[in-house]
């Protein structure tokens, strides 16, 4: 019995429209992981030292971040507000990020399932462990800048707790399981607040962590940390530890705590360069010889980039129907050109004090490590997702063919197959989200100066305009200076 064409078309229309609705729905719900041009605008503002503008760019893009990237939005705003000198507001943002990360400990099966059907951008962003530690680092620096040292110490305790939990959870000793810089900063905060005992413990952990992670962190033990260890060990009369550190650092010069008592401390934190970004690394897996040829030809001939490329691939591979696409994140470093910063403290009277910062945190190395540690899991999930999408598309194609039947069946199957397999390719996208307002490297210097008022001047070698910032410090006080160098 042949079916009336009009009837078949009508039913066919219902089926296709249902399929199409399904696809459209998934596309709509999958969320956009693209960060647009906002980071380019932020970088331009940072280059011009216009930190309010950088923050305004992030604030304006709040909708773009979407509900799944709220943590990232708060992280970015926390950083730009800190650079803008709005430490209290920066802390409010970072506090929200921290609270949300805490809530995200509980996974939602429906969200995970949905991400499995689309891509990892459908998952809420919670940041890598090093990014979570950096939240507390930034908050601690904000409180120290506000001269709220007791609150800064709360952050030091949180850093300690976060890292202890991370160490307990991470069995692999070669993995990121502690943070030398975060420990070191904690020590500086404790010492600045007069808690020499906790400062020594933090310095010692920092030293051990710098040593243990040297192979991948690309960060040597800061020379200042050696002096800090000797000074605090001496102050606490820890004679055995003091002798050990003396043997380890025979060339380190240091002053006793008593010698620092009538001086003021200046801590310089320099954020240099830009954190790495992530790109999609598409791997097209052909499952037939003609598909292999198509993939090779497409990769050889394609001149298009970005969205154009992806659209063309979706159509081509959708038509062929025998190509499975897997998207993995690839790290693109954006290395700083500033190996060392020189900052001069110019007093109202007397000779200027020049201090040189040294590397304490290579954020790119941390991002690289974090991604490599997660890559096996990401790749496994991506392959499983691709297989699921391919199977679902095959099922939809066959289902549509059978549903329509007759002469129109193959054509309907072809159309549905094109849509479903095209969507499977188009929807594949790696999770490229990361805290991109972080720097490439963090440098630190600390020095003790006579109490007084100082004008800060960055060295011309950095190519940065002379700063007009002044600081006023009294004996026994500490001042934190945060600067951003975007080269």
């Amino acid at each position, binding site marked *: 019995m042949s079916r009336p064409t009009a009837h078949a078309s009508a*039913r*066919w229309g*219902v*089926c296709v429209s*249902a*399929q199409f*609705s*399904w696809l459209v*729905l*998934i596309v709509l*719900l999958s969320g956009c992981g693209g960060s647009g041009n906002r980071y380019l605008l932020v970088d331009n503002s940072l280059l011009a030292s216009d930190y309010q503008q950088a923050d305004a760019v992030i604030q304006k893009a709040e909708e773009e971040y979407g509900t799944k990237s709220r943590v990232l939005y708060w992280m970015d705003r926390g950083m730009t507000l800190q650079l803008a000198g709005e430490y209290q507001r920066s802390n409010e943002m970072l506090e929200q990020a921290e*609270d949300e990360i805490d809530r995200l*400990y*509980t*996974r*939602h*099966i*429906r*969200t995970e*399932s*949905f991400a499995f059907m689309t891509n990892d951008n459908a998952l809420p962003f919670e940041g890598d462990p090093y990014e979570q530690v950096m939240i507390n680092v930034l908050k601690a620096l904000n409180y120290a800048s506000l001269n709220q040292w*007791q*609150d800064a*110490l*709360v952050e030091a*305790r*949180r850093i300690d*707790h976060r890292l202890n*939990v991370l160490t*307990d959870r991470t069995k692999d000793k070669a993995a990121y399981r502690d943070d030398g810089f975060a420990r070191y900063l904690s020590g500086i905060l404790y010492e600045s607040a007069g808690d020499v005992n906790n400062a020594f413990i933090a310095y010692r952990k920092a030293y051990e962590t710098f040593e243990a992670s040297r192979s991948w962190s690309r960060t040597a033990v800061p020379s200042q940390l050696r002096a800090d260890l000797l000074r605090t060990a001496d102050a606490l009369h820890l004679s055995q530890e003091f002798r050990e550190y003396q043997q380890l650092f025979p060339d380190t010069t240091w002053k006793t705590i008593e010698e620092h008592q009538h001086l003021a401390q200046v801590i310089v934190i320099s954020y240099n360069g830009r954190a790495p970004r992530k790109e999609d690394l598409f791997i097209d897996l052909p499952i037939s010889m003609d598909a292999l040829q198509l993939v090779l030809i497409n990769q050889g001939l394609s001149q298009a980039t970005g969205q154009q490329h992806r659209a063309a691939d979706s159509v081509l591979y959708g038509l062929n129907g025998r190509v499975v696409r897997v998207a993995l994140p690839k790290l693109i470093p954006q290395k700083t050109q500033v190996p060392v910063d020189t900052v001069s403290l110019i007093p109202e009277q007397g000779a200027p004090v020049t201090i040189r910062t040294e590397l304490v945190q290579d954020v790119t190395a941390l991002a690289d490590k974090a991604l490599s540690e997660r890559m096996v899991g990401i790749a496994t999930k991506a392959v499983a997702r691709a297989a699921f999408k391919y199977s679902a598309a095959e099922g939809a194609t066959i*289902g*549509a063919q*059978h*549903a*329509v*039947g007759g002469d129109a069946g193959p054509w309907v199957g072809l159309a549905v197959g094109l849509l479903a397999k095209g969507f499977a390719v188009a929807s594949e996208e790696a999770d490229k989200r990361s805290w991109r307002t972080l720097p490439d490297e963090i440098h630190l210097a600390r020095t003790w100066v006579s109490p007084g008022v100082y004008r800060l001047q960055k060295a011309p070698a950095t190519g940065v305009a002379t700063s007009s910032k002044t600081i006023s410090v009294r004996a026994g006080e500490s001042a934190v200076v945060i600067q951003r160098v975007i080269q």
Partner: protein
Amino acid sequence: MKCGRHSSSVTLLILVLIGFSGCGAETKVTRVDEGVVTDLSGRWNDTDSRMVAESMVKEALEYPWLSNFSQSKHRQPVVIVGTVLNNSHEHINVGTFITDLERELTNSQKVTFVAGQGEREEVRTERKEQAMYAKEDTQKSPGKEIGADYMMKGTIATILDEADGTKAMFYQVDLQMVDMESNAKVWFGQKKIKKVIEKKRTVF
């Protein structure tokens, strides 16, 4: 028939996906009595502040230092609240806790409570302004402040342990009453609170 079955499954899938997409919970506000315990996040909250202040002040006023002072001086001791240092893992609003302590001390009617360091400056400024602008017979003269006999000060510390989504937070509040003349500690009180905060790893 086949199309119908297929359409149904697709429709079901759409409905499931819509269900998955999540619906934002509407904001709901309920007024509750101030005494109701509201442990939401497990952090230090108003209940902790109030309960610790109440019990510790009550305990402090039961100890013999109070009666010893009253008998020897024939008046109530004058108490001031000093610094309560936050040595915890949280940004505790110590000011609220100090206010709770001050309220409990004042309402006890067993001690005379005087304004602390922060408030004194405001009062002194007002007195100076009175000397310039207020009628002479209403002006309050300087040098008549009551000096405190004792200072109540202390710390809030925490010990935090965590594994597999379960946190054990141990708060220890130490308060001491220090004789302003001799630096002798006439009372030492301690209050401990332990909270276990459990989080599920997976929910639907």
